[in-house]
């Protein structure tokens, strides 16, 4: 099996698995006051430091969650619910992940007005539209750094500058960019472990110094009262090691990704790229071909793991909301493939996979 679905999840790094196996013996509850509890708490705090360092943030605070979805829900709902009464608009982009879009839309039931900014054909937000839409009526701006379907890097810093002028807090979904690109300026940043070769079941929300929002759930008062539930030292340890590893290997990983990207672009020369070429994380390739039935292609390629869009939405048969947002017609979107690669993808695997994909696409064309 050649794995080319790095935006859905990534392989557990051997270093992470080893660290988690060792941490399984530290069985205490980090909230317990006794020695065994304090050993578990030390694991959690070491992991917190490692993730903060990888984020490049020495200030503010980082709370562990069950994943990015919970981090984003906490940030968006908490920020909206504590916003002044005259700030009722919640602003986001049309290409956000469901964890953001669905949460923003759900705020309608609480008297908020969702404002969904369109993107252009290259997947980037239209700055003039953004400028006009973000003002003193906004409770928050939620924007993704690297898109999970088309890899496009949004100008989070510029959007953030507009937001700051109007006193609007910025929430950044940095799930795909964390550990790969520099983390952008924002008031809150959501990340998850399993996209950087860490375990599933743990993520984090970073909050700027002094920022206080109400919790999503209630319970034992853990994580400064912002996130209840017993923290898992094993999962936090795995996240910490994965974050540290990503930082240490950043240059090597990025150089590897660039080499794979260049080769893949050559081999897919007659496919169209979805989304910007330059403003993009190059570990994501989303391409299409006219007349192709990508779903059928996917089911024929049994030895390659790749996808049509986000894993969460797959199986629904709905066309990708991201591809729609960049202006693709449904029949164009039907011919699109998402290919994601990274640290453990070899050049040989990539070349083999591209050959198989091109062959299958050619057969479809002949059959048609």
């Amino acid at each position, binding site marked *: 099996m050649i794995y080319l679905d790095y935006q859905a999840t990534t392989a557990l790094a051997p270093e992470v698995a080893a660290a988690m*196996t060792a941490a399984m013996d530290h069985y205490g509850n980090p909230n317990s006051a006794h020695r065994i509890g304090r050993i578990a708490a030390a694991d959690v705090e070491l992991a917190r430091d490692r993730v903060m360092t990888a984020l490049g943030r020495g200030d503010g605070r980082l709370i562990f969650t069950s994943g990015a979805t919970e981090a984003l829900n906490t940030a968006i709902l908490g920020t909206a619910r504590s916003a002044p009464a005259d700030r009722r608009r919640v602003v986001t982009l049309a290409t956000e992940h469901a964890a953001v879009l669905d949460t923003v839309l759900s705020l309608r039931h609480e008297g908020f007005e969702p404002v969904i900014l369109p993107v252009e054909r290259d997947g980037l937000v239209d700055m003039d539209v953004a400028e006009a839409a973000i003002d003193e009526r906004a409770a928050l701006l939620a924007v993704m750094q690297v898109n999970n379907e088309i890899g496009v890097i949004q100008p989070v810093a510029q959007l953030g500058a507009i937001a700051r002028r109007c006193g609007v807090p910025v929430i950044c979904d940095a799930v795909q960019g964390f550990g790969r690109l520099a983390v952008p300026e924002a008031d809150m940043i959501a990340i998850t472990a399993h996209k950087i070769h860490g375990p599933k079941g743990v993520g984090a929300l970073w909050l700027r110094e002094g920022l206080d929002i109400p919790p999503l759930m209630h319970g034992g008062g853990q994580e400064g009262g912002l996130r209840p539930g017993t923290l898992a030292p094993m999962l936090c340890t795995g996240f910490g090691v994965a974050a540290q590893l990503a930082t240490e290997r950043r240059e090597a990983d990025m150089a590897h990704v660039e080499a794979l990207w260049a080769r893949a672009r050559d081999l897919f020369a007659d496919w169209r790229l979805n989304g910007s070429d330059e403003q993009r994380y190059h570990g994501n390739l989303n391409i299409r071909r006219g007349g192709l039935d990508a779903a059928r292609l996917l089911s024929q390629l049994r030895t390659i793991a790749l996808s049509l869009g986000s894993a969460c939405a797959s199986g629904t048969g709905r066309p990708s909301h991201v591809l729609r947002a960049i202006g693709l017609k449904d029949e164009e979107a039907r011919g699109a493939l998402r290919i994601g690669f990274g640290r453990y993808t070899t050049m040989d695997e990539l070349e083999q996979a591209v050959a198989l994909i091109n062959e299958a696409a050619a057969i479809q064309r002949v059959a048609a």
Partner: protein
Amino acid sequence: MKRRIYLDHAATTPLLECARMALLDGFVHWANPSSPHAAGREARALLEAARRRIAAALDWDGEVLFTSGASEALAIAIGRSTSDSVLAGATEHDAVLRHVPPSQRLEVDTGGHVLLPDDLAPGTLVVVQHVNSETGVIQPLDAIAELIHAAGAYLLADCSQSAGKMPLPRGADMIALSAHKLGGPIGIGALLVRDLKRLRPSGGQEQGYRAGTEAMPLACGFAAALAASRGWLTDAADWRAMMDNAIIRAGGEVVAGGVPRLCTIGSYRMPGVSAQAQLIRFDMAGIAVSAGSACSSGSLRTSHVLAAMGWSESAASQVVRVSIGHDSRATDIDGFLVQWQAMATGTR
């Protein structure tokens, strides 16, 4: 090195060997269970197998929704309930009480048993724990469920402490579970739901009732832990009886000693010695016990559970919880009792 004595299994209990193996197996299949490709489908198959094994081990024929733990399961069950109103027992865990204002809490008797109102409104969601985490008191949930259903109301049972140690209550409409209290990993739990109409949907995973990539390895660890043998519970019952007797003989008091309690939890008052002082001295002696639940033990505030059962603040502040687990030994109990007696007599 002298063996450390861990008697705080109600806070969390060490991972069972079978759960550790299941986690390690799960780590190998790291694909996203929602991915359509073969690797994703393989992860999905393992996730669904874990779900079925959990249902089978618990003899549950309703839905099993995975969550990050019992706190989230309770938050979903209460926060997204389709019921108009919620009532909860006064001795429930904080994860429940933070969702339920004081005016909607049900009193308990001195034995810790919840008192249902005569005028229970139809459609109300009533939250009652199976076993109290601080005292071990068992609520007669089968009888409670009958009364609740007779009124046309619904029962949400918090079975965080009882699951895997006792059969689940038969009549619950929803049940919240946590894996790490029964030898599984921290970071996963479940909400069992008889009828999904009791909940408003939200999220793309877990049949549309929970969002976030499923943590399949944790689910496998959970399932493996539930299937493990419970032979040790017989020893636990003997040891708890031994502790109860020894502590009474030494001048102590057993919390809720006269009512049925889970055999792994004992809560004891040492007259004249604050729980804080006891905890420090037990810890120095290499013994891990706790004052109330772990979540609030950092703050050392007086237990809301004992207050609801009619304990004075001063008496309640002298109570320490001891909880037995799958790797406890007779020598652990002996070691604890020696320290307890020394502390109780030394300070008189």
